[in-house]
C-alpha cells in the first residue's frame, strides 16, 4: 500500500520534473527561492491583512450606503495597485540587483541562457508573483461584486490594466537595476523610477479607476484610446526589453543596433498615433509621457561616447560597407549623440505635422516640439555641465548619465503641466502627488503671447549655450555618422 503510494508519488514528481523542462529556468529558481524563504510569505500576508482591514473599515463605517461594492472595489484596487506597481517591481529589481552584487549574473551570462531569456525569466517571475497575489485578493473582489455597484467587466478590465502595467514596470525595474553599475546610483535610479512609475502607472489605470467604465465603452474614442495604449505599451516594452538585453549581455555582445531600432519603432508608433484626431488631450499627454521615458532610455544607452572594443571595430568595418545611414545604428564614439539628435529632430517634425493636422487649436500644438527641444536642451545641458564642472576623476559615464535622470524628472513634470493647462483629467488623479505643485505652476500660465515669447527666449538661450558647449561632440558625431567609423 505504502509502496504503491510512493510509486504514485514518484510518478507525479517525475511528471512535474518533465513538465518543468518546458518552463523558464529562472522562473523555477525564483519559485523555489520564494518557497524556501520567508519574504514572499510576509508580503502576501501583509497584503491580505490590509485587504481584510480595508473591507472591515468600509463595511463598518459605510454600511447600508448605495454603491458600497464600488467603494470597496476602489479601495481594494488602490491597495492592490500599490503592491503591484511598487512592491512587485521592487522585488524584481532587488532580485536582479542581488544577482549583480553576488555576481551570479556573470555565471548566467556564460551559460546558454541568452539575455532575452533572463529578462523573460524575470517577467515570468513577476507574472507568477502577480497571479499568486491576485489569487489572494480575488475573494475580496468577489465580495465587492456581491455588495453591488461594480460589474465583472470593470473588475476584469481593472485587473487587466494593473497586470499589464505591473509587468511593464517590472520590466523597467529590471532595466533600472542593470543600467547603473554602482549601489547608490542604482538606488537613486530606483527611487526616481518609483516616482515616475507611480505617475505613469496611475495615469494608465485611470480609466478603470476613476472613470466609470460602463460609460467609457460607449464612447467613440475608446478604440483609439485602447489602440494608442497598446501601441505605446508594446513599443515601450520593446525598448525596455532591448535595453535590458543590451545591458545584461556583457561587452562581448553589444546590442546598440537593436536599441536604436526599437527607439525608432517607438517614435514611429507615437508619431503615427499623433496623426489621428480622435485622441483626447489626456491620452495625447500620456503618449508624450511615454515618449519622455523612451528618450530617457535611449539616452541612457546610446547618449554617451562609447569605448570601441575590437569586436565593435570589426563591426565598424561592416558599417563602412553599409553606408552612412545604417552606420548610425552601430556603436561607436559619439555616434550615440548624433543618433539621438537626429531622432529628436525627426520626431519633433513628424509630431508637429501630425498635431497641426489634428490638434491645431490656438497655439497649443506648440507644446509638442517644445517638449522635444526642451528635452534635448536639458539633457545636453546637464551632461555638459557635469562634464565641465566636475573634477576629471568624477567624469564617469555613470555621472554623465545623471543628466538623463534629471531629464527624466523634468519630463515627469512637463506632460502633467500640459495636461493641467488643458484641463485634462490626468491632473485630478489624487494618486499623483507630484501633480499639486504643477497645478500651482500651471495656474500662472495663461497661453498669452508674453508667456510664449518669454518661454521661447529662455529655451533658445539655453539651447544656444548648450549647443555651443557640445558643438565639437555634435560635429564629430554627425561626421562620424556620415563617414562611417575611422578606427
Amino acid at each position, binding site marked *: 500500500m505504502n509502496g504503491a503510494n510512493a510509486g504514485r508519488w514518484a510518478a507525479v514528481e517525475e511528471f512535474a*520534473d*518533465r513538465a518543468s*523542462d518546458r518552463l523558464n*529556468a529562472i522562473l*523555477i*529558481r525564483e519559485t*523555489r*527561492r*520564494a518557497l*524556501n*524563504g520567508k519574504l514572499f510569505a510576509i508580503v502576501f500576508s501583509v497584503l491580505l491583512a490590509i485587504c481584510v482591514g480595508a473591507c472591515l473599515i468600509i463595511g463598518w463605517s459605510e454600511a447600508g450606503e448605495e454603491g458600497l461594492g464600488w467603494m470597496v472595489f476602489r479601495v481594494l484596487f488602490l491597495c492592490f495597485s500599490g503592491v503591484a506597481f511598487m512592491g512587485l517591481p521592487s522585488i524584481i529589481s532587488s532580485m536582479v540587483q*542581488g544577482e549583480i552584487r*553576488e*555576481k*551570479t549574473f*556573470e*555565471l*548566467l*551570462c*556564460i*551559460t*546558454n*541562457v541568452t539575455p532575452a531569456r533572463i529578462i523573460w525569466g524575470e517577467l515570468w517571475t513577476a507574472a507568477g508573483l502577480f497571479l499568486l497575489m491576485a489569487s489572494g485578493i480575488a475573494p475580496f473582489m468577489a465580495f465587492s461584486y456581491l455588495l453591488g455597484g461594480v460589474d465583472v467587466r470593470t473588475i476584469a478590465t481593472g485587473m487587466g490594466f494593473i497586470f499589464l502595467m505591473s509587468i511593464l514596470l517590472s520590466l523597467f525595474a529590471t532595466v533600472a537595476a542593470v543600467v547603473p553599475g554602482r549601489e547608490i546610483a542604482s538606488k537613486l535610479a530606483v527611487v526616481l523610477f518609483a516616482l515616475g512609475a507611480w505617475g505613469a502607472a496611475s495615469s494608465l489605470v485611470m480609466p478603470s479607476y476613476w472613470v466609470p467604465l460602463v460609460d467609457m465603452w460607449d464612447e467613440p474614442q475608446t478604440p483609439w484610446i485602447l489602440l494608442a495604449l497598446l501601441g505605446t505599451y508594446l513599443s515601450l516594452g520593446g525598448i525596455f526589453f532591448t535595453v535590458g538585453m543590451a545591458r545584461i549581455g*556583457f*561587452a*562581448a*555582445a553589444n546590442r546598440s543596433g537593436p536599441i536604436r531600432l526599437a527607439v525608432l519603432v517607438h517614435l514611429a508608433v507615437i508619431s503615427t498615433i499623433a496623426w489621428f484626431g480622435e485622441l483626447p488631450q489626456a491620452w495625447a499627454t500620456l503618449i508624450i509621457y511615454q515618449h519622455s521615458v523612451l528618450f530617457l532610455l535611449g539616452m541612457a544607452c546610446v547618449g554617451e561616447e562609447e569605448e570601441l*572594443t*575590437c*569586436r565593435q571595430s*570589426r563591426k565598424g568595418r561592416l558599417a563602412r560597407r553599409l553606408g552612412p545611414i545604417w552606420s548610425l545604428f552601430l556603436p561607436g564614439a559619439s555616434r550615440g549623440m548624433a543618433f539621438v539628435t537626429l531622432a529628436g529632430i525627426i520626431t519633433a517634425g513628424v509630431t508637429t505635422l501630425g498635431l497641426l493636422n489634428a490638434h491645431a487649436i490656438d497655439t497649443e500644438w506648440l507644446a509638442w516640439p517644445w517638449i522635444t527641444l526642451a528635452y534635448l536642451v536639458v539633457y545636453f545641458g546637464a551632461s555638459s555641465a557635469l562634464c565641465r564642472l566636475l573634477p576629471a576623476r568624477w567624469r564617469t559615464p555613470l555621472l554623465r548619465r545623471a543628466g538623463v535622470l534629471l531629464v527624466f524628472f523634468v519630463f515627469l513634470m512637463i506632460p502633467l503641466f500640459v495636461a493641467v493647462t488643458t484641463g485634462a483629467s490626468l491632473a485630478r488623479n489624487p494618486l499623483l502627488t507630484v501633480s499639486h505643485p504643477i497645478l500651482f505652476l500651471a495656474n500662472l500660465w495663461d497661453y498669452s503671447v508674453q508667456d510664449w515669447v518669454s518661454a521661447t527666449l529662455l529655451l533658445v538661450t539655453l539651447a544656444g549655450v548648450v549647443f555651443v558647449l557640445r558643438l565639437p561632440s555634435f560635429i564629430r558625431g554627425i561626421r562620424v555618422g556620415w563617414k562611417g567609423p575611422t578606427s
Partner: protein
Amino acid sequence: MEVDRLERRFGDFVAVDRISFGFRAGDIFGFVGPNGAGKTTTMRILATLDAPTTGDARVNGVSVVDYPDEIRSSIGFMPDHLSVYTNLYVEEYLDFFARTYGLSGRRRREAVQSVMDFTELHSLRRKMCDTLSKGMRQRLGLARTLIHDPKVLILDEPASGLDPRARIEFRALLEELSRRGKGILISSHILTELSEICNVVAIIERGKLLTCGAIEEIRKNLRRHSVIRIGFLDRIEEAHKKVMLYPGVQAVRVAGKELEVEFVGDEAARAALLKNLVQGGLPVVQFAGHEQNLEDIFMEVTKGQVQ
C-alpha cells in the same frame, strides 16, 4: 586552446599586454603572477565575459571573440569568488545551472548526480548553498563548472583559502579531470602550489608574459644562475677576494664564516670552482649548491612590481 596576442586596455591602462600561449586536452596549464598581474582579466576574456581590445583566443579553432555563443558550451569558468543564491539548496543550485545549459529530463538529473558524485557533495545536497564553508563552496563551484561537461576548464584561484587537506583533495579532483581529457587553465599566486599539478606554467606580471613552458624547462633555463654556499674554517677575507675574481661569479655575500656566491655555470663549472679553492689552500669545510626552488624562480622572474 590558443591565445593569440591578447590585449586588454582599460582606458590608457594596459591590463593584459599581447600575451600568447596555448594548451591542449589533458594539459593542466598553470597561470601564475602577483596581484594585479592580469590573470583574472585574461581568464574573463577566455570565458567570454569580457572582450579583448585586440587579439583573439580560439578553442578548437573557434574564436571566443567572434563566436562567444558557440564557445560557451565547451568552456567551464570558475571565478575567484563563488557566487551563490540565497534560499536555494545545493541540489537546486546545480539543477538550475544544468537547466541553463539546456540539459533536460533524464540528462539533467544524471548530470546533477554525476557532478555531485564526483565532488562528493551528496551529503550536503539539502543544505542551503549560502551557508556552506569555503571548501564546500569551492567544491560546489567546481561542480557547477563541470555540469555541462565542458572540454576546457578555466579556474581562477580555485585553491585560495583552502586548508591543506582540502587542497590535496582538490588536486586529486583536478588530476582526475585531466585524465578524463579536459584542458585545464588554473591560476594562482603561488608557483609551488601549481608545480605539483601543472605540466606547463606561464608566469605573468603587469600584463606581460614573462616565461612560459614546462616547470623543468624553466628551472633548467634559470639553473645557470645558482647560489652556492661555501663554508670556511678561517681566512674568510682572503677567500672572499679569491672567489670574487673567479669567472662566472656574479656576487658574493659574507655571512659569518660562510660565503653566499651567486654563480653562473653548470655542474662542471662548480666542480672547477671547488677544485680551485682547495688547490689555493683555503680550508673549505662546506660546499653546498643551493637548489633553486620554485619560490626563488618566481621571485627571480617577477620584479615585484605590483600594480
